[in-house]
């Protein structure tokens, strides 16, 4: 998880605040808890980690994925870029129709997309 940055002028940004809050939760609060409360605290810490990662990397990842999906969809039959549906739906329909069976380029794209989503989980 990124430790975040200060916004300047003494103000921590949201990522920094989440990082510090999570550390406090894990280092100070968690050791005082038992059983179900301990489990719940771990869930909260996990959610904070994912939220901070998304604030830090989410927009860049989403833009990279959107660009790649659009480029791939543009090469499909039926000019999906001009249609009413987005590139995701066009690729889904191409998968269901068999147009991209075993397509190595699409497979590589799906691997990158999944990898980016996993990276957000820390």
């Amino acid at each position, binding site marked *: 998880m990124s430790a975040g940055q200060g916004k300047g002028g003494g103000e921590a940004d949201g990522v920094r605040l989440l990082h510090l809050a999570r550390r406090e939760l894990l280092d100070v609060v968690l050791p005082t808890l038992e059983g179900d409360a301990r489990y719940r605290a771990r*869930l909260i810490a996990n*959610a904070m980690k*994912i939220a901070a990662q998304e604030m830090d990397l989410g927009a860049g990842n989403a833009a990279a994925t959107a660009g790649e999906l659009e480029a791939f969809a543009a090469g499909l039959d039926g000019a999906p870029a001009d249609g009413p549906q987005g590139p995701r739906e066009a*690729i889904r329909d191409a*998968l*269901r129709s*068999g147009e991209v069976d075993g397509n190595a380029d699409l497979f590589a794209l*799906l691997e990158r*997309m*999944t990898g980016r989503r996993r990276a957000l989980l820390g």
Partner: protein
Amino acid sequence: MTTTLEESRLAGRKAPLEAFLAKAAGAKAVEVVDARPLSGGAIQENWLLDLVIHGGPMAGPLEAVLRTDAPSTVAVSRSRAEEFALLKVAQQAGVTVPEPLWLCEEPSVLGKTFYIMRRVAGTAVPHRLMKESDLGGDRDELAGRLGMELARIHSVTPPREELAFLGTPSADPALEAVARYRAYLDALGGSYLALEWGLRWCELHAPEPQGPVLVHQDFRTGNYMVDRHGLTGILDWEFCDWGDPMTDIGWFCAACWRYSHPELEAGGIAPRGPFYHEYEAVSGRRIDPQAVAFWEVMAHIRWAVIALQQGERTLSGGEDSLELALTGRVYPPAIEEEILRQCGPDQWKASE
């Protein structure tokens, strides 16, 4: 966290519950000495009951479990009355289950249907099984025993009058599953392309159907109880249906249910060998590795869809549950990676 009987939600229902139990047990009276909720189980609510039965054929102390619906349910889950019927059929088929004792469909007792089963010893917690190598006894023997138990479940075949609620078996469970999960994804909205990739692979590589037999559909580590000596009971019968027996083999061996021991391909507890050997010996059915590989891909798709549905309950279902939200967020990417690993371009046969 412990909840005393007086603090529990059963407290106000103690008298009607005791009256029901006395009548069902053919006893003079039944005393509920203690009732503690079991944690876990997003769909069902389970209570540990300590009973004392006065008079009748079962006189004496009885450790039991009361199982009823949790506030939120899943549409595909069987009702408690159906689950009770399934437990009885499984018991008759020789499967090791918690003995089903009494079903109550009278709303005046608890306000909802419930049933009572005899408590079995041990634990079902997967992480304990992963960490404590002596839990469950010898692991190859445990895997073999589970193969035998699964073969006994699969010995139940349609038609069965008491299981009429299962309906007519599908002629092709594999292709029906493809259509069902596509419909679930459509209902969720969005486009889950890695899952769509897996579903298309499944459509092209569906094995010849076997069966139909009774399939458990959640036969995995975490849903059976063990003590230090071995298996004590198969749990969680709420997803049973008629289907292809390889469904359960694939679900049990799927990587997503091996927890911290991915190298132990039979449920994270043992190699496949002992599990397969006992299953084949008892069922008389040969396990086709290709068919199992198919059902392992389908197992991951199913688990991903379930995780997304659980996450969706917090988005539009009105349930503010961090646990469900994390389930929908954390599990799908790893499951999708596994699906892609199993269905790479070199694993596709040419489509016609």
